[in-house]
């Protein structure tokens, strides 16, 4: 049964992007009040699955890495997917005692099995592998699952013109509120932002989540992020007709002006059919 995830992260399978997955999990833990021990287990298992994609899926090259999170209580489901040759052929058979080297290289799977309540490995249609991990989360709260009638597909945010992109789709906004600031913080750090500019980026994340709540034309908030040297570019959507411009104006505080516009260096509205995208760019220095 394909569950609609609360969160999907689409990234390149680079080692430093595993950090973004971990930051996402930390944000999730905050949203559902996850036990720190359980977070450590989940972090370790999911990092193993992601590292396997980084190392094995594309024969040393980069390719797409997708992470889905379904946060319905009492269990938390995380899927890690690649579209390469898959980890099935390489890692799953690397389980011999033919020397310690191999044993160490192939411990990812046993680690996942030891930490997840249930783990499944399957082929992805058209090539690739999917690892599905279920974790028991005794004390955590559940997030409302996105309504499948609302939006059967996750929104795709146009990322043309963005370099080194990642995208995420996320619902409900309670989850976006804890995940997006962490992700933007990690990305701003990567783009060599100073700490005060990183803090501004987090203010921006707060503001975006608050202002887009109720303005989306889909169940999920979609965010595409481009990381250039000393610059972040964001695309936010899909927004209902007229809302992209409105959320900038709505952020106005008497005596301060439009807070959202003050936090970015440029913003632009793109209309595509009946939905709109808000493009924003933030520089490491002003």
């Amino acid at each position, binding site marked *: 049964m394909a569950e609609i995830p609360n969160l999907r992260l689409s990234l390149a399978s680079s080692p430093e992007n595993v950090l973004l997955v971990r930051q996402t999990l930390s944000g999730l833990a905050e949203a559902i009040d996850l036990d720190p021990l359980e977070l450590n287990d989940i972090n370790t298992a999911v990092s193993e699955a992601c590292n396997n994609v980084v190392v094995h899926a594309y024969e040393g090259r980069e390719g797409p890495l997708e992470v889905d999170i379904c946060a319905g209580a009492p269990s938390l489901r995380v899927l890690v997917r690649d579209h390469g040759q898959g980890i099935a052929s390489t890692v799953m058979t690397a389980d011999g*005692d033919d020397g310690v080297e191999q044993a160490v290289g192939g411990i990812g799977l046993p680690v996942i099995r030891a930490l997840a309540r249930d783990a499944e490995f399957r082929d992805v249609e058209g090539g690739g592998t999917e690892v599905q991990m279920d974790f028991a989360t005794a004390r955590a709260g559940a997030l409302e699952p996105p309504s499948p009638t609302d939006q059967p597909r996750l929104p795709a945010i146009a990322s043309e013109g963005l370099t080194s992109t990642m995208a995420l789709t996320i619902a409900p906004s309670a989850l976006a509120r804890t995940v997006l600031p962490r992700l933007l913080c990690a990305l701003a750090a990567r783009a060599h932002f100073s700490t005060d500019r990183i803090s501004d980026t987090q203010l921006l994340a707060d503001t975006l989540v608050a202002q887009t709540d109720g303005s989306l034309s889909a169940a999920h908030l979609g965010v595409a992020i481009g990381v250039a040297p000393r610059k972040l570019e964001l695309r936010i959507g899909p927004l209902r007709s007229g809302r992209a411009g409105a959320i900038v104006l709505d952020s106005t505080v008497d005596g301060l002006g439009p807070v959202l516009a003050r936090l970015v260096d440029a913003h632009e509205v793109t209309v595509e059919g009946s939905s709109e995208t808000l493009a924003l760019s933030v520089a490491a220095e002003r």
Partner: protein
Amino acid sequence: MPSATATTATKMSSTRPMSGDGLELKRLFTRWQRHGDRAARETLVRRFMPLARSLARRYGSSSEPFEDLLQVASLGLLKAVDRYDVRRGYSFSSYAVPTIVGEMRRYFRDSGWAVHVPRGAQERALKVRDTQERLTRELGRAPTVNQMAQRLELHIEEVVDALAALQAYEAFSLDARQADGREELASYGESVGADDERYELVELDATLASVLSHLGSHERLILRMRFVEDLTQTEIAARMGISQMQVSRQLRRSLDRLRALTRAPVQAG
């Protein structure tokens, strides 16, 4: 734990002939488990120590002193070496990994890890905060995460985590005085003097009818410096005699309060 994997593992091993290395391992296990040959046990432990080390590194995620965790992992390895049943046919590592991971999980649970680690993380956050302030003075501007990581010999991820902790929306109780926003304001209230009053007069008219009037004067002042005068958070911190992180937390809190005050329900459709 091992019994669950035994059936599939047996199947796998039957399709693969045992290599010379595998035979050598089998001999070592027999020497230790049947004949009590301690030298064989030691050879096995030394041989698989990289596995324990690798698992400790993976599971610890920099939150526990690595040496402590390695000790726990080594204990798990010893147990695995003692209990592994070579006749079952599955590989040693497929038995040892869950045993070692199980040992580390138990250790985390029993040692009150959930209590200790936030404390360790808090100490690191304080170091990051101090380093940020020191580097700001040295460089004359706010440092990057890379610069802080280099100075503290920490991984980027650890600094990012520390920043998240420092900027956590729930006031991060760095010390008792700053346990909540109100006291944070009180503690630097005295350091803000004449400048403050000047701002007060200028902004009085503008704010009387605005939602800003619901905020305290320091909160308004910081918001104005950031959004009207377009000062950086570091510049605001210098003027207010507080840290940039305090400015950041104040701004987050203030903006959130303003949103709550002005929130009008958005009509769908």
